[in-house]
């Protein structure tokens, strides 16, 4: 039950909910825990609620860091 997964906000509804999309699957979730959600942003979704926004720059930074690890050095 501790599952949480990033999804993109595709539509914001009046009742503090939003439709999010994950790999083509759309689901309506609560935005009650999020300040100012916006279409196009990614949020972490857990048991039908968005928990936090996802920061694309930080996501890139993490991946870049991983990619920068030097396998040749490692293989040594």
């Amino acid at each position, binding site marked *: *039950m*501790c*599952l*949480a*997964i*990033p999804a*993109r906000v595709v539509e914001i509804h009046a009742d503090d909910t939003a439709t999010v999309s*994950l*790999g083509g699957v759309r689901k309506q979730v*609560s935005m*009650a*825990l*999020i*300040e100012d959600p916006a279409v196009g942003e*990614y949020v*972490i979704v*857990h*048991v*039908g*609620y968005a*928990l*936090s*926004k*996802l*920061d*694309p720059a*930080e*996501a890139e*930074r*993490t*991946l870049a*860091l*991983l*990619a920068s*690890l*030097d*396998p040749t*050095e*490692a*293989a*040594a």
Partner: protein
Amino acid sequence: MKYVDEYRDGALAERVAAAIAAEVDPGRIYSIMEFCGGHTHAICRHGIEDMLPATVRLVHGPGCPVCVLPIGRLDMAIELARRPEVTLCTYGDMMRVPGRDRGSLMKAKAEGADIRMVYGSGDALRVARENPGREVVFFAIGFETTTPTTAVALVQAKALGLRNFSVFANHVLTPSAIQAILDSPEVTTTGSVRVDGFIGPGHVSTIIGSAPYDRFARDYRRPIVVSGFEPLDIMQSVLMLVRQLNEGRHGVENQFSRAVSHGGNAKAQALVDQVFELRDSFEWRGLGTIPDSALQIREGFADWDAERRWQLRYVPVADNKACSCAEILRGVKKPADCTIFGTVCTPENPMGSCMVSPEGSCAAYHLYGRWRDMEKRA
């Protein structure tokens, strides 16, 4: 799936694995506890152990809310569900957890209790609105990740004046559990559990931030890396811990920076604070009774508190003697150390809570990893 698939990339995994292999000190054991059952699950599902050097040992922690709930609290839920006027809404994971006398919510349901599996508290609210003639109780469990979602439901129920809805609250606190581990005799005295550092639960930290761990790192001199849940996140967190350990550091680092800040989600924290307050003490399976380690519903929401509405009383029940869940939750044992793992105790007929939720160590090992133990034994 953006922000998922990238963090499962096999080629990048090889790089990280190579880096870890290169950076570990061959003469040293790195004993790392992943606190969270979500991490345990990901480790087993993706086969991460196969990619780590033998000297990096992952110790599974108590961070599974299904696993740590003691039998007595489950029995309260079963008792509630059996009341003819009650519809109990629960996360599916709880259905098979064994209670007293081998009872379970699944069996109570088969015997006629009205029990519905829900995806979250929002669905329970919907059930209550659609069934005005029923007393709908949401069986709320979870760490800080889940607590705010229960808080939202309670605030909404109060705003709607929805009198046939209530919550049986069992929310528990991550820092209390970490402290219990660090203060346990196995860690402090006997040394039978070695925890050199922690992989911190990233989803918890989306809410509470990384700040609450600062004092553990400082006071107990253990590095902590708050980690995401994809396999590359975990591998990277291991690498970060190895580096801290190699360098003799013990700070809190944030691997899951794309979703976690130091302060966490203020809006969620405010909601939790509005609805919940500290419970004087709470019994955890495996960790014992810990003061200030769980939450209860505040007076202002008393009308939506199932414990008050039905005057539920907690009666402690001893765990099944054959079951080693308590030791597993403290990191003292691994699933295969339990004498009934995979024989008497299976996911179909669980004897302990750790065999139920996919985040329980025994279940994760049974589902994904038991060939490994068989190989070792053979």
